[in-house]
């Protein structure tokens, strides 16, 4: 049994009665798709080596080249699939955004963000106008507004998540999951 079949087994164990379908790409490194339905709600999972799992609710209007959500670990993925199928929620596609837009979208004021990061409001204002900053600072901003920073390097068709700059705990978790 390969890891894709293990994931399907995990999903079927969590949600008895769901129907699954595996479709494999020609390349052994992926992608592999797992479609899951409980009859009423469905999701498409896409796995590619080095890129983790993509997740999109079915049916999808998006004919774009990316899944709505991404997950590193099979357990996170299974948990989200269970949530989507049991509640009828839909996956939400990420968008490109400036930090300011992202903060506003998360309904966090500059004052609140400043308090969360232990800096002054003018510092946040300057930070949102910067065209360069340290990974540590960027991570602090993203986490303060409730997100998680991931860095992905692209080489033609391949994309690899860089874990070198992860916090030690996340790095350990990433190793454990793979």
């Amino acid at each position: 049994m390969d890891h894709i079949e293990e994931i399907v087994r995990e999903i079927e164990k969590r949600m008895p009665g769901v129907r699954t379908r595996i479709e494999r790409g020609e390349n052994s490194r992926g992608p592999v798709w797992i479609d899951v339905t409980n009859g009423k709600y469905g999701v498409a999972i896409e796995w590619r080596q080095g890129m983790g799992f993509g997740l999109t609710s079915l049916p999808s209007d998006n004919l774009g080249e990316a899944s709505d959500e991404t997950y590193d670990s099979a357990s996170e993925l299974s948990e989200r699939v269970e949530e989507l199928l049991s509640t009828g929620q839909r996956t939400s596609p990420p968008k490109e955004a400036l930090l300011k837009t992202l903060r506003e979208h998360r309904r966090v004021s500059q004052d609140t963000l400043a308090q969360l990061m232990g800096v002054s409001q003018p510092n946040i204002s300057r930070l949102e106008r910067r065209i360069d900053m340290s990974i540590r600072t960027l991570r602090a901003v993203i986490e303060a507004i409730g997100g998680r920073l991931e860095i992905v390097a692209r080489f033609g068709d391949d994309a690899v998540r860089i874990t070198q700059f992860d916090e030690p705990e996340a790095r350990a978790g990433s190793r454990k999951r793979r």
Partner: protein
Amino acid sequence: MMEEAFDEIEDIHSGIIKNPDAASTTVSDGRMYPPHPSFKLRNVEPPTYRHRGGHKTVIAPNGSFRIFRIEADLSETIIFEKHGADGKGYWDG
């Protein structure tokens, strides 16, 4: 021909600039892309390509193709089809 058709439609209707590296991105840009060689399904005839997420394109030797949307119950609905240069679809037999 099909790639040109996809690109032409999207250039007119989406207003989103084509990203040549779109197949390796993890963020959707909202533009529809033609089937990518990386997404060709193994051992499926006629050649079938998954789009990331819930669509498939089936392409016949005569150039005819159909795009299917995968529904919540995993059934598949035709959302677009185009006949080949000979005026036939592979589905015509």
